[in-house]
């Protein structure tokens, strides 16, 4: 019964919010936050429960909802991120038009995602998947203009993915005459490996497009940068991770661990990992040279997805735990970063990395939020990103994938470059005089930033809390259990103890702080009072942000372009050219059609006369 109520609240609440917006905008804002809070509480109550119910019957196919640890883990991440984004939207979206529609779509996306992770059969999965995809399309193109184009790119690729999914579903139904996920997974073990490979590849395309795995990533950068910032947070934090959920479902629930690892003579999971490796490396280096803060974060999302897929696809218990945990962490720190950039954009109405600077003096709160998010993204110890990346690296090193490990580690060093660029060009350096009157972000923006930062630090120091859940998912997928405790993870070849590291860092910090205190008193000076080897630094003139990594850019520019996007654009152009030519033939003029018919008959007669074929 619980799951039906949950989804009814999610969908009903969305429409209720829309209707209430017609009465009063304040009621609508209140309802939107209230409904997402109720859903969060409800999901918290559902922790640890397993249940499966049939809620409807469609053409004799029972539609099922079910909850287990895997779906709970995804659902709670979805709900927390959406709730905080809606809270953030209250001030971010104030004064914009079509707000009823915005909140309706926000809650519909949320409901669709909850539906996906709770679906117990492939038909409901597909229905919720489409609800999510189409509401996301409407939100991406909310700002019109360039956003509309970004939305088109997204929805075209999304439809291709949906078609692949539909084909796989129909094929599964004709073979097994059921769409129930658990029944399919018990029957599929008797199928030929060629057939399983066919299904896996179809679904890989479907989920890969949503998850932006190279070479299906091209929709993501424009979509993330053009969407309203709170929705970018949802989009990057959890929506693209529905692809990850799909992968886990496909690899470890539908196909099952043993079958998946032996597909294609055991090479399939390696091929997927290689694709994920490419997904890590190339987008990282493209991100370094982006000038739009949100576009930079968008490319970074693609590369982080690479880490998740590497972990999941490599097929060991530690890698699986690392991949799933990285999904969870990425949801939080990437949402945090998008919200922070949204707050900056809200105050200074630009996100161009070349024209900002020095905002730490005006928005210290948002700066520290961004700093925590960036540390999580890099994987600095004491943030949650570190633990998941440690698990992934360790898997890659000890299971003899040294070059994948190299790619993953190098991706992290590229991450440092673009993260620091983001921090420096927005918050550090000298503050231009035109930003003298900028104020700190409003409270409804600061609350989500604080909550997300605290979550990141908490799970960085006590990673055992989510890792225990991840571990029980891994065990139910058929992996051997890991030795997880509250402070980290222990194994024969290297133990990780975050509490020890935290204590060591804390003591060293206090110690250094004391030494710092020992010296002569410091004097605070304004930013203009800086040393320039005798010459005068004019204010507003010497903020070094433009082409921050120019020497590197000069060296690697020829090699790092988005070849895939260029290739797709060529296909689109060729398709358009073909349609143009077809249009010239079918020009709508009756005279031409009569000529075609006469010519066709003439050819038939000619063949009849000389060829004597029939």
């Amino acid at each position, binding site marked *: 019964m619980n799951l039906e109520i949950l989804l009814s609240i999610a969908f009903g609440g969305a429409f209720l919010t829309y209707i209430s917006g017609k009465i009063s905008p304040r009621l609508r804002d209140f309802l939107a936050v209230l409904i997402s809070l109720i859903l969060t509480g409800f999901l918290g109550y559902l922790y640890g429960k397993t249940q499966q119910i049939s809620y409807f019957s469609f053409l004799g196919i029972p539609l099922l909802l079910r909850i287990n640890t895997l779906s709970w883990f995804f659902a709670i991440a979805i709900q927390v991120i959406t709730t905080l984004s809606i809270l953030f939207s209250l001030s971010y979206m104030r004064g914009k038009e079509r707000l009823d529609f915005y909140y309706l779509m926000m809650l519909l996306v949320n409901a669709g995602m909850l539906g996906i992770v709770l679906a117990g059969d492939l038909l409901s999965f597909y229905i919720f998947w489409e609800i999510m995809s189409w509401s996301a399309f409407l939100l991406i193109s909310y700002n019109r203009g360039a956003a509309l184009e970004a939305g088109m790119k997204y929805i075209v690729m999304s439809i291709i993915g949906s078609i692949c999914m539909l084909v796989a579903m129909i094929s599964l139904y004709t073979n097994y005459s059921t769409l129930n996920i658990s029944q399919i997974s018990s029957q599929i073990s008797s199928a030929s490996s060629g057939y399983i490979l066919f299904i896996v590849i179809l679904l890989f395309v479907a989920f890969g497009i949503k998850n932006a795995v190279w070479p299906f990533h091209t929709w993501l950068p424009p979509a993330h940068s053009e969407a309203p910032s709170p929705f970018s947070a949802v989009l990057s934090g959890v929506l693209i991770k529905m692809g990850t959920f799909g992968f886990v479902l496909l690899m470890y629930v539908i196909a099952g661990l043993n079958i998946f690892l032996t597909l294609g003579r055991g090479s399939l999971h390696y091929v997927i990992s290689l694709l994920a490796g490419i997904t890590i490396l190339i987008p990282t280096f493209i991100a370094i040279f982006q000038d739009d803060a949100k576009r930079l974060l968008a490319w970074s999302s693609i590369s982080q997805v690479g880490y998740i897929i590497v972990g999941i696809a490599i097929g060991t218990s530690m890698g699986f735990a690392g991949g799933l945990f990285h999904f969870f962490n990425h949801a939080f720190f990437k949402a945090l970063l998008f919200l922070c950039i949204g707050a900056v954009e809200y105050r200074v109405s630009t996100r161009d990395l070349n024209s900002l600077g020095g905002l730490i003096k005006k928005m210290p709160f948002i700066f520290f939020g961004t700093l925590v998010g960036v540390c999580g993204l890099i994987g600095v110890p004491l943030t949650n990103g570190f633990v998941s990346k440690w698990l992934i690296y*360790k898997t890659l090193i000890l299971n003899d994938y040294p070059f994948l490990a190299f790619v993953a580690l190098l991706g992290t060093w590229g991450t*440092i470059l673009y993260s620091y660029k983001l921090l420096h060009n927005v918050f*550090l350096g000298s503050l231009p005089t035109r930003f003298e009157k900028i104020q700190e972000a409003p409270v409804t923006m600061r609350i989500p930033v604080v909550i997300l930062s605290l979550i990141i630090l908490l799970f960085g120091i006590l990673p055992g809390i989510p890792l225990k859940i991840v571990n029980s998912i891994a065990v139910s997928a058929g992996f051997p259990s890991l030795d997880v405790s509250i402070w980290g993870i222990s194994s024969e070849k290297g133990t*990780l103890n975050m509490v020890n590291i935290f204590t060591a860092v804390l003591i060293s910090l206090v110690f250094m702080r004391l030494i710092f205190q020992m010296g*002569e008193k410091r*004097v*605070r*000076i304004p930013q203009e009072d800086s040393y320039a080897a005798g010459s005068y630094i004019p204010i507003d003139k010497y903020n070094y942000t433009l082409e921050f990594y120019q020497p590197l850019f000069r060296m690697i520019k020829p090699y790092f372009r988005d070849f895939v996007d260029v290739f797709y654009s060529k296909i689109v152009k060729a398709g358009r050219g073909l349609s143009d030519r077809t249009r010239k033939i079918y020009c709508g003029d009756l005279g031409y059609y009569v000529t075609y018919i006469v010519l066709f008959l003439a050819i038939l007669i000619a063949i009849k006369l000389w060829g004597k074929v029939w």
Partner: protein
Amino acid sequence: MVMKIIEFIISPLVAFIIGVFFLGLSRKIVARIHQRYGPPIIQPLLDVIKLFHQKGFSHGVLFDLGLILSLAGSIVVILFLPFAGICPLKSSGGLLVILYVMLFLPLGIALSGGEGANPNISIGISRKLILSLGYEVPFLLIILSVMSFYRTISIVDIVNSQGGFRWALFSPLFLSGIAYFMILPAMLGMRPFDIVSAPQEISTGPQVEYGGKYLGLSHIQHAFSIFITIALFVDLFLGGGENIFYFFLKMLVVFVSMVLIHSVFPRLRLEQALRYLWRWPTVLAFLGVIISQIVR
């Protein structure tokens, strides 16, 4: 328990002494090569004491905090490095954590400098990050070849398996060892790779706004980072040290050879440095990984 606490105190202390000694030694050696007399060896220590008694100018909270973070990070890395059988944090994550905690060093300086609002700092940090991306390519390959050759990520195990002159430098990993030696000047920021500080171009880059105790702390940070970089090389390729004397001797040999290179080479440009780092050291490190996969 008491031994443990003593270990925690003794390792940073030894690192500090060795690091500061190396700073003084390098000035002396360079002076002798230039046919000058040079300052006394304890001059850096005297400098630090002097600087702590001068007024320091701060640009803000992050300006202080970044420097402290960088120093605290150095101390934590030192606690992870085994020398002479001492390794206070041996069971907390191993080599991967060292790689990551080492991030605190440049990151702290970069954050602190960022609030300095001086274009020279920004240029210096941009150079530092690019240069580190340059040497991380061969460095990561080297680390991976070591970890996959010994099949562990624990640095203590790596040192233990090299006991009794079975140094990694004389094992199938020798190509990786040579590659590490080739990138050491870049990691230490010594010539021909002193692009980051480059006093004549960007007035010492990230340090330009430091004065008084800030400059003193940044000297200490420099001393720590010299110790960390060379100690890691000694641990990974020269078999660590059975006692503090051997460990120091090995470090001294490596450091003096670095100083000799430092004192005769002119500075490279950033692109030239990247081209160098991504050519021979990377090729050697790459071969090292392949060999470590075959031989193991």
